[in-house]
């Protein structure tokens, strides 16, 4: 296992007791991967056993619907030997240390991002459970005057089988809390003894959700709290030229009208935490604030660039057709390979910008009082967010009390802290608790958008139809360079993936990235970069197979070749890509889907697979096309995510990921015209409903003892190409531009 629990760091588990409870906490340091700085991982967790036997497990991993509030506690409960159904779970604030007054910007390896929470928690969380169990056993041994080795545990009890004695954990908690934790890591259960890991568990918050409990940030309030909505510049990069507040101020309940400073020209959004200048209307209640905003009369000064998406994309096409770009991988001799090829092929694919549109729009509560800043909100990367917010509020980062709440969807959106920063600015300006709420119109127009891009891909084939050369050119804007001070030569990292199959197997490979500026703010959108690239590459392979008269599955298996490990140089997904595991998911999905069996006219079947975040996913999609539209009749998936912690969670993420990718591919696109985003709400930003959803999904999980890897994102990338390949099989129409929308109309 290349993960996380490092014996040299043992002793970081802390044991404390209070009010008769035993508490074993695991600071973030323990979760750092070997060789990484301790501050590089900020997931914290704890287990508490109260006198009445109640077990509570807290995790600081942001819960956005990906299920970590269930799956991470499962790891602790496994080693603790308790009935998981009785375990309570809760979100806890991210632990952090302050270094020279700042939390330094971190990699995307902590919080909720990069599909890594479960696998990074796998060893330390189990160790925390084992330590708690160990102390309870020692306490029982002392009480009974027996050798701890004679004792066993089961369902929250310590048992002495020889003397037929038993004690509940709750009775032992107080004594256990006074014992010294072991110096060395404890042995963990062998896989064969797992009773919780690997068995389907339902989501811990499910009952609270179906009864409408106040779990979300939007549901929270503070005494004396003001409500704010912000009128933001409709022009990207624009500023208010003049503001007539008269009518707004006349509305009873409007308390203040205050500026929100936008980013200075050329300044990273990460400095001030917002992407747009605005005017905030602060009122006693939310509806009044909304009416106040309606009543504002603002003249906006457009930004320096008033771009239009179609013009920008035309520039992108020119770049990838005529420019060299930044060559990020150049192995073998690509030019020679293409010159000597028996056949070359080339295709262009255009991927659109998209908004996140989390069902819960951005919101946050902040209260600055006595030099301390209290924040109630949700963020996917709390350490980075806290650092920015501290700057905005003018407090030391150590003086922030952050109360995380469950998020109504994340998908990358809640990496970015605009609502929290606006709330921090407004509590600073008013001295009162302020809740900032974004309406859907705010959300769609001011999202940190998923990058759109111009993808040009070329293959050189030898006389046997093997891949001799591969070229990939992408023009896009880096999704993180708006926020983080990334050196220009490192901005390609989330945009192109030189080690993706089949490029990784090509003896001659050149991958280039072309910087295509835009004033539209950008950010990470679930399976960032992979979603676009997998669509292009896996669609293009389908094109090649058809051009060569070969079966698309057979071509992929042939190109994957013999089972072997290949170096995959990307932190989220590597360190290796295993061609055998990639082939296995393709074969399994194909077999279960009846690949190759005939379908009636108007129907089609497509296959695609992708490797992302360490997980291998293949989908076979079946569609029916009629009257210029399509339905997805069936999706058969095969998944190898290594050792599975919660099989139910894997199936949920697969079903959800498939429909998320399908919804985006069907109809989602953000465009800019004359400097303004053209879409504003669900009437012009299309979200899929149940009538077009894939609801017949079969998820097949490959049994594996390999390191557990992520599931939040990997199901998405192969869905889009499997869908488009199925549409091609049904109609002969190749989708080279997303969204699909009206392209199937004859």
């Amino acid at each position, binding site marked *: 296992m290349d993960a996380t629990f490092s014996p040299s760091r043992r002793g970081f588990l802390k044991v404390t007791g209070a009010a008769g409870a035993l508490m074993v906490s695991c600071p973030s340091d323990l979760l750092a991967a070997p060789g990484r700085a301790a501050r590089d991982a900020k997931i914290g967790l704890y287990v508490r056993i109260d006198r009445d036997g109640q077990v509570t497990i807290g995790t600081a991993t942001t819960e956005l619907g990906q299920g970590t509030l269930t799956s991470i506690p499962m790891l602790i409960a496994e080693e603790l030997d308790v009935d998981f159904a009785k375990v309570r779970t809760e979100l806890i604030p991210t632990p952090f240390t302050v270094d020279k007054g700042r939390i330094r910007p971190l990699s995307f390896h902590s919080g909720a991002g990069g599909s890594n929470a479960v696998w990074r928690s796998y060893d330390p969380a189990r160790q925390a459970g084992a330590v708690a169990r160990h102390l309870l056993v020692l306490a029982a041994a002392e009480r009974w005057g027996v050798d701890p080795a004679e004792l066993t545990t089961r369902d929250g009890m310590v048992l002495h089988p020889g003397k037929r004695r038993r004690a509940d954990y709750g009775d032992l908690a107080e004594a256990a809390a006074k014992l010294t934790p072991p110096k060395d890591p404890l042995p963990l259960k062998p896989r064969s003894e797992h009773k919780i890991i690997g068995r389907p568990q339902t989501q811990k918050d499910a009952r609270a959700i179906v009864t409408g409990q106040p*779990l979300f940030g*939007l549901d929270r309030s503070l005494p004396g709290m003001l*409500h704010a909505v912000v009128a933001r510049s409709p022009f990207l990069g624009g500023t208010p030229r003049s503001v007539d507040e008269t009518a707004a101020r006349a509305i009873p309940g409007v308390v203040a009208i205050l500026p929100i400073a936008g980013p200075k020209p050329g300044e990273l959004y990460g400095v001030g935490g917002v992407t747009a200048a605005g005017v905030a209307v602060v009122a006693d209640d939310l509806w009044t604030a909304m009416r106040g905003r309606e009543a504002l009369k603002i003249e906006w000064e457009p930004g320096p660039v008033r771009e239009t998406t179609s013009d920008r994309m035309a520039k992108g096409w020119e770049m990838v057709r005529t420019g060299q770009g930044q060559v990020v991988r150049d192995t073998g001799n690509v030019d020679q390979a293409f010159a000597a090829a028996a056949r070359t092929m080339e295709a262009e694919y255009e991927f659109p910008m998209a908004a996140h549109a*989390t*069902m819960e729009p951005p919101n946050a509560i902040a209260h600055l009082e006595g030099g301390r800043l209290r924040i109630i909100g949700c963020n996917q990367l709390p350490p980075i967010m806290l650092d920015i917010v501290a700057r905005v509020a003018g407090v030391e980062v150590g003086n922030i009390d952050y109360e995380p709440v469950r998020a109504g969807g994340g998908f990358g959106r809640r990496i970015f802290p605009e609502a929290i920063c606006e709330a921090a600015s407004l509590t600073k300006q008013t001295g009162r608790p302020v809740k900032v709420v974004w309406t859907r119109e705010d959300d769609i127009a001011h999202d940190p958008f998923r990058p759109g891009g111009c993808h040009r891909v070329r293959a050189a084939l030898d006389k046997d139809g093997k891949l001799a050369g591969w070229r990939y050119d992408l023009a896009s804007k880096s999704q993180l360079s708006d926020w983080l001070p990334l050196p220009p030569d490192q901005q390609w990292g989330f945009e192109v993936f030189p080690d993706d199959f089949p490029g990784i197997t090509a003896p001659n490979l050149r991958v280039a990235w072309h910087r295509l500026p835009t004033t539209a703010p950008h950010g990470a959108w679930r399976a960032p970069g992979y979603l676009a690239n997998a669509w292009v590459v896996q669609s293009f392979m389908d094109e090649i197979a058809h051009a060569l008269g070969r079966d698309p599955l057979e071509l992929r298996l042939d190109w994957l070749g013999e089972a072997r490990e290949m170096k995959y140089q990307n932190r989220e997904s590597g360190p290796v890509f295993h061609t055998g595991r990639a082939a296995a998911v393709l074969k399994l999905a194909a077999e279960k889907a009846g690949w190759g069996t005939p379908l009636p006219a108007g129907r089609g079947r497509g296959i695609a697979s992708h490797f992302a975040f360490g997980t291998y996913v293949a989908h076979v999609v079946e569609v029916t096309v009629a009257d210029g539209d399509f339905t997805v009749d069936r999706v058969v998936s095969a998944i190898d995510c290594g050792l599975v912690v919660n099989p139910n969670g894997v199936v949920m993420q697969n*079903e959800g990921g498939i429909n998320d990718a399908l919804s985006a591919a069907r109809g989602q696109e953000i465009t800019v015209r004359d400097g303004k985003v053209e879409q504003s709400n*669900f009437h012009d930003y299309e979200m899929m*409903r149940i009538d077009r*959803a894939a609801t017949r*999904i079969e998820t097949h999980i490959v049994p594996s003892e390999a390191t557990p890897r992520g599931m939040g994102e990997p199901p998405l990338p192969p869905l889009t190409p499997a869908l488009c390949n199925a549409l091609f099989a049904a109609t002969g129409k190749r989708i080279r531009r997303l969204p699909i929308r009206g392209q199937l109309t004859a």
Partner: protein
Amino acid sequence: MSFTVNVNGRRRRVDAAGETPLLWVLREELGLTGSKFGCGIGSCGACTVHVDGAAVRACTVPLESVGSARVTTIEGLARGERLHPVQQAWLDEDVAQCGYCQAGMIMAVTDLLARNPDPTDTDIDQALTNICRCGTYPRIRKAIHRAARLVKEA
């Protein structure tokens, strides 16, 4: 303006402008935050509540139009600890991911089953127009069929 509304079997007094959407009255004035804000234009259905038993999108219903009608929110659906069959089916199928849209889904489905106790997949497709960005639709469909069985057995 002062209004009296009948919410979850209780008469509640509200001081608010007549055009205030029912959603904000429920959430901000009455503290019933189970009904969610998703779009404000009656499109996504996250705010779905019942008015005299029929599903409506509370973000587009002005307070002054409610009158003496019975309003039921997600908080008023269960009978004490005993969940409504639709809520129970949601648990049995473990539908929710982020969970934000599910209160509105459940309220919409409760109304659907009251009108059509045994809906076909096509009926569901036509009747249920709420949005779930997490894509829990496969389990929503299963949970609706399960809830239909639970209602029949009850």
